[in-house]
């Protein structure tokens, strides 16, 4: 299907337009693509090499019998190359990590010939196995995919791997996922739905029904009032568990084949949950309820407005066995026509039997404190303090509690559900939080823990009207601006690497003139580095940060300091 963009561009085309090739240049980039099996390195034929960069649309060539390729007529500029071939890792030329971006840019001037690129492309790794049903038969049509496990702040996080699709187990229940880059993986069979109304009769039921049928009885043995059972297949992780946290982690290197990763995805009976919705003073107003699966560490049903019946009950049919978190928000009338926010956070374990559960909406806790500034506080008319929640399961945070700040700098945030929070400040132009101490600890560098039934008072939050700034120019050894690199600032104190995101700059893009700028870091000791290839997830990997630290420059920021630091790459 031709894209809309392309279509509209083509239809605007006047006839008999001179077909001048746009921005034809005179530089050439070429090389050889190989693959290594054991100790032998062989040319990779019919691989597709793509080039992108300054002023050109993506161009492609196929490698020849000797693995050779060349791109001609390139304009002066910087270019990145990738190599693809079925079963092999998509290779980003110049990247140090197999199968991962980004490519290292190659700069050419007019007429330059770079013909010596040597690209070795590893085979992708493979996971293979069989999906079976509860009777040991093949589970054809089971969808199988891999989740990549990454460590974030010391916690495992699971995410779908970009570029790999689900495969469907064949009629023998077999699956094979190939082309995987090195990494840690979990194999899952994807479920989620139910087969409404489908039943599996027990042998006793069959016998009774059979007898009834032969006797000409007019009805089956089961009472008609019985809720029809609903069967389902849950998400199952290899080796056959429903809790993601207990799944088998498969660590793959380069070109590894892991077979026999078998799973059993059993048919289970789903339960109907009879849910009673309560609040401290009568039924809650506008209850909105979502369901997350604790076992899968993900949201199962996004929050939606629930309209319980007159008796405050509602029914969730077809809930597969598992450990769930019901979360939500509601309100109840407060004094003088105000509305008091309520939260819901209830964990429920479903084992296949129908059950009744009470979902109790609760009032939150209070967090109060005082803004401090030297020598005097600015105008606080529009100032707001926000508690930014760090949800236990991604996506389950519905609301970040906030409050306006009084003229004297005091603030009181009410209705705060239990959980972990970061304190944020907005509405005072140019002013930022420097520290927020509670019992001697800075709750900006580690989350503020709010516990059920326990209010928090006396948060001393120091603000400053002078933001820090680090800036400079990054150049290569020839003194040319090097926009392909990335600047990174991390705290010098390793203990803060994973707990204090506010002390990390994140990946800072360098402008085409080589300039970079990092603003708003709190005062303290830092490490400044320039790196070539990283993805944001690596910023949570202490091993990676150690590498960064090894090549970094130590810097110290005082309050409001404007630091200029130029950087030169390589020798």
């Amino acid at each position, binding site marked *: 299907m031709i894209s809309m963009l*392309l279509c509209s561009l083509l239809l605007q085309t006047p006839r008999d337009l001179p077909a001048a090739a746009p921005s034809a240049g005179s530089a050439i980039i070429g090389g050889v693509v190989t693959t290594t099996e054991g100790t032998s390195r062989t040319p990779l034929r019919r691989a597709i090499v*793509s080039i992108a960069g300054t002023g050109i649309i993506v161009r492609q060539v196929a490698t020849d*019998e000797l693995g050779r390729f060349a791109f001609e007529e390139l304009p002066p500029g910087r270019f990145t190359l990738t190599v693809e071939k079925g*079963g092999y890792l998509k290779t980003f030329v110049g990247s140090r990590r197999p199968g991962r971006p980004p490519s290292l840019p190659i700069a050419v001037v007019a007429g330059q010939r770079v013909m010596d690129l040597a690209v070795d492309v590893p085979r992708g790794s493979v996971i293979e196995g069989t999906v079976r049903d509860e009777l040991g038969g093949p589970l054809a049509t*089971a969808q199988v995919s891999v989740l990549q496990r990454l460590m974030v702040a010391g916690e495992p996080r699971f995410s779908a791997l970009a570029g790999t699709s689900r495969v469907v187990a064949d009629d023998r229940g077999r699956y094979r996922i190939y082309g995987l880059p090195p990494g840690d993986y979990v194999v899952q069979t994807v*479920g989620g739905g139910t087969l409404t109304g489908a039943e*599996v009769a027990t042998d006793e039921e069959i016998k009774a029904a059979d007898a009834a049928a032969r006797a000409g*009885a007019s009805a089956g043995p089961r009472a008609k009032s019985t809720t029809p059972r609903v069967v389902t297949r849950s998400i199952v992780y290899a080796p056959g568990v429903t809790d993601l946290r207990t799944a088998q982690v498969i660590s793959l290197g380069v070109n590894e084949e892991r077979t026999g990763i078998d799973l059993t995805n059993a048919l289970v009976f789903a339960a109907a949950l009879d849910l009673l919705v309560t609040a401290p003073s009568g039924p809650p107003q506008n209850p909105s309820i979502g369901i997350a699966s604790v076992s899968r560490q993900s949201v199962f049903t996004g929050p939606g407005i629930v309209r319980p019946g007159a008796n405050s009950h509602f029914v969730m049919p077809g809930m597969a066995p598992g450990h769930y978190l019901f979360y939500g928000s509601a309100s109840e009338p407060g004094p003088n026509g105000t509305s008091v926010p309520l939260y819901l956070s209830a964990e429920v374990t479903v084992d296949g039997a129908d059950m009744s559960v009470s979902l109790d909406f609760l009032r939150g806790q209070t967090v109060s404190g005082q803004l401090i500034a030297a020598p005097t506080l600015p105008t606080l008319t529009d100032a707001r303090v926000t508690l930014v929640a760090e949800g236990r399961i991604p996506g389950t945070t519905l609301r970040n509690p906030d409050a306006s700040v009084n003229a004297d700098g005091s603030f009181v945030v009410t209705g705060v559900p239990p959980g972990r929070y970061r304190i944020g400040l907005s509405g005072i132009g140019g002013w930022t939080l420097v520290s927020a101490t509670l019992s001697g600890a800075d709750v900006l560098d580690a989350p503020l823990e709010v516990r059920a039934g326990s209010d928090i008072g006396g948060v001393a939050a120091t603000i400053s009207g002078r933001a820090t700034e680090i800036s400079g120019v990054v150049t290569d050894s020839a003194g040319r601006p090097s926009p392909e690199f990335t600047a990174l600032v991390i705290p010098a104190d390793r203990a803060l690497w994973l707990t204090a995101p506010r002390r990390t700059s994140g990946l800072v893009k360098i402008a085409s003139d080589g300039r970079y700028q990092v603003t708003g870091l709190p005062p303290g000791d830092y490490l400044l580095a320039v790196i070539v290839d990283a993805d944001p997830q690596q910023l949570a990997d202490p091993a990676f940060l150690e590498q960064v630290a090894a090549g970094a420059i130590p810097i110290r920021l005082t309050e409001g300091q404007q630091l200029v630091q130029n950087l030169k790459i390589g020798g």
Partner: protein
Amino acid sequence: MKTAISGAVVVWLALAAAPIAQGQQQAATNPTGLIVGRVVDASTDKPLAGVLLELGIETTLGQVAVGPPRRQLSNAQGRFVFRDVPAGRVTVRATVGGNFPGPNGFISNSSGFPIGAYLPGGFGQRRPDGALRQLTLAQGQNVSDAEIRMWRSASLNGTVTDETGDPLVDVVVGAARVTSDGTLANGPTTKTDDRGMYRLSSLEPGRYIVFVPQTQTVMLMDSVNVVTARLQEAAAKNGVSVLPVVPELTGIRIGTSLVSTGTSGMITGTQPPRTVNGATYVLPTTFLPGSTTLNVNAAVEIAAGEDRTAADLTVRAVPTAIVSGTLTASGVPSNGMLVHLLPAGSRDAALFETAKARTDANGRFTFPAVPLGSYTVVAFNDPALPPAPNPSAVEHSVGIVGGPGAWGAAPVSVGAEGVANLQLAMRPGFSIRGRMDFEGSSPRPDEAALKNLRIDVTRTRPQFRSIAGAPAMSLLDPTQQFAVIGVTPARYTIRPSTLVIGPWRLKSVQVGGREVADLPVEISEDLNNVVVTFTDQPASLVFDVAGADADDGATFMLFPADRAAWSDLPPTSARLRGVRLPTAGGGTLPFVLPGDYLAVAVSESLLADFPSEVLFTKLAPLATAVRVTAGQRTSVSLTLKKVQ
């Protein structure tokens, strides 16, 4: 024909008694019937667990489940029970693994091929892909021993390599079933894995051709350059140096053309061309075991449940030539049109398409790497979209060159020297105009019913995975006129979108005095004054059959007497009727299109090729001629015929 219904099990439209009127079912008394049964492997009699059984309850035409679906999964002993079954005629369908990857490993009844280890079936089936039998339950009646036999599906397995023995990875492998009359029916496709291995599974027994399709998508570099220049302009204006990725512009340059490779995520499986010493080589569409031309006689025959291995294909690079030309309509170049290059004899099968090229602003197209051989070059516009109650508005609202349904086709023979300056002129599409009439004293359908009524002009037998685009259709205007605009020449059926509107039944579709209702008609000119007539006094047919097969009962079949219709009568045609009788007996078809028919009673197991010219030719000498007259009840008496 299997084309449209492969994977779906035929259930005869068994209108053996007066139809159950719509709405009557709700009024029926409490459903209390009981069906107890079990599912077994047809060859081993072993019980099959986990088979999804769905209860179908009949309405006037065909099988429609009323209310929420009634489903059971057979238990570990293969047993199942349906309770509270309403009186009437019901079918029990059985599937393993489904025909679409459902969200949870269950069945999703979307279109697609079965992907389970057993072929879809149901109660009463006596052969793989055979017809189901209905169960007729009186109020409170029970069935205690409904045995469902299921047949294992077959598979084809092999490896695809190139001429050096290297595996071809992620290439498409397709199977097409060769029907008894030599045409190709739909079949599944799969992709090779990282070892070049493939498995085409869940196949019915039969003859198959297996192939690796290779279709180039081509655009001229001048079009690419024009688009690039515009993208550069836009980028400069926005101050960015890197241009956006346009998948259609991503490919390998061969001469003046760009051959698309598809980008990650939309891999076409087509391998890139290679140029060696100025000559361009491609991998051609290749048929098992390594031929580059389609030959239905080379089909592989597989038995029920067979796992055929070593169905290996070698795809060898071949030299190519350049084919170029210009596409015009009424002398005006067609810009941005797709021109298709199809191997001669492959009709409109998109999977066999060698290449498709987009024309440039001057109507020029180039196929830069065509394997030598005989081809057809084809270009066409889609028909006009409904609603089309105002014909004049339609014809002027479509801006494409040549107008809706414009088409052009030319044979081309490609030798080593290639073909230059091929002139392909598109001719205007045809239009089909007419009106709808209602004969009878019943109240006319209301405006709402007429508003949803379409006249569909449907290809009788599209080749599997046809390149042909949107179907042609029209709505009715307030005076019940219709105008189907933009029909390309081919064989079609012209029929209203429903044959039943309240008390009204389709009676006839007349073209210049000729009856074509649900019969194939060749369209090679404009058709005016087509009259579609509904009646409230439909013709009916009463039949009785003497004799029955001991274990297969008797199947009554009615099919058109006109031989010209046999080759491509659509399987859904109302002129094809069958009733499975468990024993000798008879019944009534309360609504039959008037016309001349042949009627025959045979064992159902003889109807494996239904519907096909071969089958009708075989049945004709055994059949009795029946003329069904409008508004009248016709009777026919038959004796079960034995066939060798």
